[in-house]
Structures are given as C-alpha cells and as structure tokens.
C-alpha cells in the first residue's frame, strides 16, 4: 500500500504539475475562518483532482466543507486560504495556473471566474439578480468574456436558453427571475454557467431546492450538456441518490477532509470507510428492509470551533480502535489492490 502523499511527491516538484488528463488539481488545501468566537478550521488538507470530462461528486453532511472547497476554487470564499495549491489548466493549453496565487479581484482571476470555471448555486431564488432580466444576466457574462457585440451576445444568450430546454427562449430572456418557476430559474442559472463553455463547472447542490420531477429533469439536462460540451463537473451534494445517478467519481468529506475517494461503483458496492458505510446504511432504500430500523450514525458532527484529536470521525465511529483512532490522524492510503480507491482510516493501514 502506497501512501498517497508520497505517491504524489513527484508531481509536487513542478515537473508535471497537472497530468494531461486533469483540469484541476487541489493539493493540501487549508482554509480557516477567523471569527469573534474563535478560529474555524473549515478545510484541513484537502487534495483531489478532477479529470477532463468527468463528474466528481463531493458528498458529506452540512458543515463538512464541501461548499467551501468549491468556493475556494472560485476564490469566492470569505475564509482565508492558509496553505495549499489549486492548480488549474484550461482547455487545450499547457499553461497551469495556481489559483491561490492570484489576487481575489485581480484581472487574471476575473478572466477565469465565470469564463473557464463557473458555478451553479443552490438557491436559484437568491442567486439571480431580481432587478435584471434573465437575458441581461446571461449576456453580462458573454459580454465580459466572449464578445463585445451586444446583438451577438443576445443571440448567444437565447441560444443557450434553448439548449437548456426552455420553451420559448426569446420570451424567457426578457423575463425577470420572479416570473419563472424554481426549475426554470435553475435552468437559467445553468444556462448562465454554461454560456462561456467553461472547462470546469462547480455545481453546489444544484437540485436540492427543487421538486423531485424537476430535479430529475435538471440532472438529465446536466448529463446531456456534459456529454455535449465535455465540461468537467464538480458536483457538490448531500444526496447519495443524486451521486449515484450523476457522478463518475466520488469524494466523501468529513470535517474538512476527504476521508474516502473512489469510482462511484466502488463507493456504493465496496465502501471502506466506516463513515461512508454508515452514510449509505442510513438512507432509506426502495424495497429494502421496509419496516425495519435504519442504521443511524450516533451523535452529531462536532461543533466547528473545537478540534477532535486523532481521526475526526472516531467519536461516532462504530469500529474505532481505542488508543489509536483517538490520538493519531490516519493518512490517506490506497486500498489494497486498487489504483484509484483511497481511504483515510486506520482499519486499512
């Protein structure tokens, strides 16, 4: 079993920073919030990569840092990035940019944000500006990054609205967000995010606020667009069902760390980390064990101001080893016999 940290040691020497297939590589990202109540360590060394044209699902309970990871890549997080690198390479170029080195509001970051990396937020109600029409808001991104010609921008905005399955896109482009239903607003958000054909799309709980039939349609749409444009997607969600339907690879997060990372099939059929296992067992499954108790994880996620010694999951873990799990932080290691499945647990070291 190789240690991942040493396994990627060669990559860290800048010779081949991002392998050919990766669009983004996050290395040992640490993020903190300095609040009046104390320091919240939101991310404690997150490392992952997203291959070209793949969908990476990031799952975990609220407060585990999944949204902050996404916001860090966009440089939109209000927290402070303490250390780590976010290496990004856009389509068809060999130039690699370390996003953490860029100034938050500097011209380079602005060139990337919304153009090469774009984001879909959870709440379609609050993330669209109520004072501008949907068309205006899509055109804004296009005018900023793609073309100066207003009629051309308008044409592209209507085009992309048609692509996301809006009936009568001309009329929708002239509507204000309050005139649209939740599903239509989320489609408008997706249209906006895709208007510049980004290399990486960060989707932060894009369907959580939607009804199940609308959710299914949005997921279907994202899948189609992803096939067509070839965008890589970082899909942040807490819904294991959505992960199973959408993602190629999955990273499970707990308290600011990735505790297991594998192909989607391995996560569901061969999970290793006790947290992943418990998470899968705690969701009701259609036709399985109805009328029986669900397995639940005891306790709750610890309060963010405190730090847990050892493995952060050990107070809730059914298989915790006294004297080891509560003192030593496990390293991320490859599961025996696999080149893609990593887990951060003493059971597998």
């Amino acid at each position, binding site marked *: 079993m190789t240690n991942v940290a040493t396994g990627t040691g060669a990559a860290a020497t800048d010779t081949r920073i991002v392998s050919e297939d990766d669009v983004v590589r996050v290395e040992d990202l640490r993020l903190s919030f300095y609040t009046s109540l104390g320091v919240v360590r939101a991310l404690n060394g997150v490392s992952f990569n997203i291959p070209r044209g793949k969908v990476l699902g990031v799952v975990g309970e609220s407060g585990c840092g999944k949204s902050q990871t996404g916001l860090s890549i966009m440089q939109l997080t209000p927290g402070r990035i303490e250390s780590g690198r976010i290496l990004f390479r856009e389509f068809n170029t060999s130039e690699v940019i370390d996003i953490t080195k860029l100034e938050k509001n500097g011209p380079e970051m602005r060139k990337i944000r919304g153009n090469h990396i774009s984001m879909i937020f959870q709440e379609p109600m609050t993330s669209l500006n109520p004072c501008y029409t949907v068309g205006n808001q899509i055109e804004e991104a296009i005018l900023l990054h793609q073309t100066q010609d207003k009629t051309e921008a308008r044409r592209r905005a209507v085009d992309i609205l048609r692509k996301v399955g809006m009936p009568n896109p001309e009329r929708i482009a002239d509507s204000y967000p309050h005139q649209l239903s939740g599903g239509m607003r989320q489609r408008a958000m997706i249209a906006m995010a895709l208007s510049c054909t980004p290399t990486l799309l960060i989707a932060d709980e894009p369907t959580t606020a939607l009804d199940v039939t609308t959710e299914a349609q949005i997921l279907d749409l994202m899948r189609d667009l992803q096939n067509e444009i070839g965008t890589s997607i970082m899909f942040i969600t807490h819904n294991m*069902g959505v992960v199973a339907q959408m993602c190629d690879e999955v990273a499970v997060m707990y308290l600011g760390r990735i505790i297991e990372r594998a192909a989607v099939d391995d996560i569901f059929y061969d*999970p290793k980390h006790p947290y992943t296992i418990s998470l899968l067992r705690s969701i009701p499954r259609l036709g399985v064990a109805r009328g029986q108790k669900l397995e639940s994880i005891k306790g709750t996620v610890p309060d963010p101001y405190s730090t847990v010694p050892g493995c952060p999951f050990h107070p809730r873990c059914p298989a915790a080893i006294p004297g080891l799990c509560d003192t030593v932080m496990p390293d991320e290691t490859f599961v025996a016999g696999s080149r893609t499945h990593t887990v951060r647990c003493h059971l597998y070291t």
Partner: protein
Amino acid sequence: MDTAKKNGRSDEILLEVRGLKKHFPIQSGFLRRVTGYVKAVDGIDFYIKKGETLGLVGESGCGKSTTGRTILRILDPTAGEVIFDDPNIGKVDLAKLNRAQLKRVRPNMQIIFQDPFSSLNPRLTVGQIVGEPLAIQKVASGQALKDRVAELLQEVGIRPENMTRYPHAFSGGQRQRIGIARALALNPKLIVCDEPVSALDVSIQAQVLNLLEELQEKYDLTYLFVAHDLSVVEHISDRVAVMYVGYIVEMASTEQLYYHPKHPYTEALLAAIPKPDPRKRTRPIKLPGDVPSPANPPSGCYFHPRCRYAEEICKVERPPLRDIGGEHWVACHFAEKLQLQGVTRLNEIPLIELPRRQALVPATTAATT
C-alpha cells in the same frame, strides 16, 4: 417485514376526511375585493386507520401541508368533513367544532413541524416549550409538570438537565426531538408530521425516523406523514396518498403504490426518484410544462396537459377518486387499462461488516511494525 408494522394496526378508522376543501381568497385592488381563489385543497377524501402511518406525498404547492393543517383546524376548512374518533368523546366532525369544543379534542391531535429552527420559540426554555401543552390543558403543574417534561425529554433522547436551556443551544436534530417531545406531551392519538426530516442531514434523518417509529410502536400512535422525499415515505408508511394540485390522485398500500402504480402522475414521480445505486441509472419520464397554479387549474383532469396517456375525455371530465379493488384508490379514467411502470427494488448494498476491534489489533500492529 410488514408483520411487525401490522401489530397494533386495526381496521378501525381514526380519521376520515370527506370532501375537504381549503380555498384561499385572492384579494386585489383598493377595496381588497375577492377576485379569485387559490384552491389549495380542492375536495379530498381519505381515511387513516388506528395505528397506521399514511404518507402524503406530492410536489411543492400541491396542498399537502395545507391538508395537514386544515385537519387540525390550524386553518379553517372551506368545506368538507373531518371526522375524528376521539377516545373520550367519540366521533366528532372537527370542521364544525367551536373553540371550546376544539380545545377538548386538541390533546389527541398534535403536529410536528418541518423547520426545527422556526417552530420553537427562542425566548422560552426547552422545559417551557415542552411543558406548554400540559400547562394550557391544565394537566399538570409544579413539580409534576417538571417530572413529566423530564420524562418526555428522556423519551426523545435529550438529557433532562437541558430543560433550562434555550433552543439556540441545540442542533437541528435535537430541536426536532424537542418538537417531537412537545407533540407527545398530551399522549395524542394522531400526529401530523409535516416534513419532519426534510431539514435534517441524512445521518440525523435516520435517527429521527427511527425515533418516530419507536414512539409509534410504544404509544400506538397514528401518523399522517407529509413529505416530499419518496424514499423516506416508502420506508415509514403503511399506505401512501399522492396529491396533485389540491387533489388526491392515488391512494393505496405502500407496496401497491410503489410497485404497481395506477396513475400516470405517480408513475412519473416514481421514475424521478434519484436511486442510490450507480448500476441503475434511470432517465426520468419527460413531463412537459410545470405544475399548474391552483388559482387557475386546467379543465378536466388537472394532470392532462402533462400526461402522456391523455385522451379527449381527460380534457373535459375530471375523474373521481374510485376504488379499483383492494383499497387501491385512483383518480384516472384509464386506471384499469394502463400498464404503468413502478419502481424497481434496489439491491441491498453488499456492505461489509465493520471489522471487530479485537480482530483489528494484530492487523494494526502488523502494519505499524
């Protein structure tokens, strides 16, 4: 698996709803003239047997929460009957009771709200919140009240010492437990659970669902379980009713409804569930358009503009909810003819047993040496 649930369930009907309507007036202009009605609940019929859980599902805006609230008379119904079998008074029509009469029935019917952050008064301590129903009904006071509150908190898994703390000190799951303790305070018969787990994280959701099931068994409770998560409803319900734009379109046992649906809307709803199994990727049934507004519903069957099986009759005649046999109620003209697809059973995920601690010790020593 179902036998466990059937214990304690009888064929006696605890609550029967007949033709229940709740219309909200739309007022406009300077004189606030009524220009129309939002028909949130538009003539629904259903019944709940003693000790069972009836799941009420539907998309947002279909009137499921309004139904729950109208039954409890938090909202006054526009029309219809709500017949509740009160253990002390016998069968009463809740829709016709006045305030004083209602107060006598209320201990037997309670509600658990969706949002644990807004349903607890931030200026009352947990003890006061849980004790309030007891004080209002003058069931207990002084030390007896404190003891009862402590007992209730214990029951839902909150340490009684926390009685003097305020809601802000608790997490979402704990607050929901406090809400459950409050609903249990007066030993109710019927509890309306209005999306009790949708605001919670998955691991906490499982804890609360288990708690609700334990309490049901222990106190012989009857639940009306309002939710939009179809997997949760499948897990907890004995029977399920599907609502669409203020109307029940299908009602049957959970088994029947999920595996042999008879209404096209149910079929579409089931196909849309994101299934937690990467080997069973599904494509949703395309439903054109949006859910119609209950202020301006379409003619005939409300689902016909989006239904792929719709025919001429669907545009003009609204199908009644009828029993097609075996307590399977459907509101569709073609319920008998259509061959609809239910959900497929998911495999139990072959989860590995977590290694035992003892077995692990040699393995870890081997790894460290």
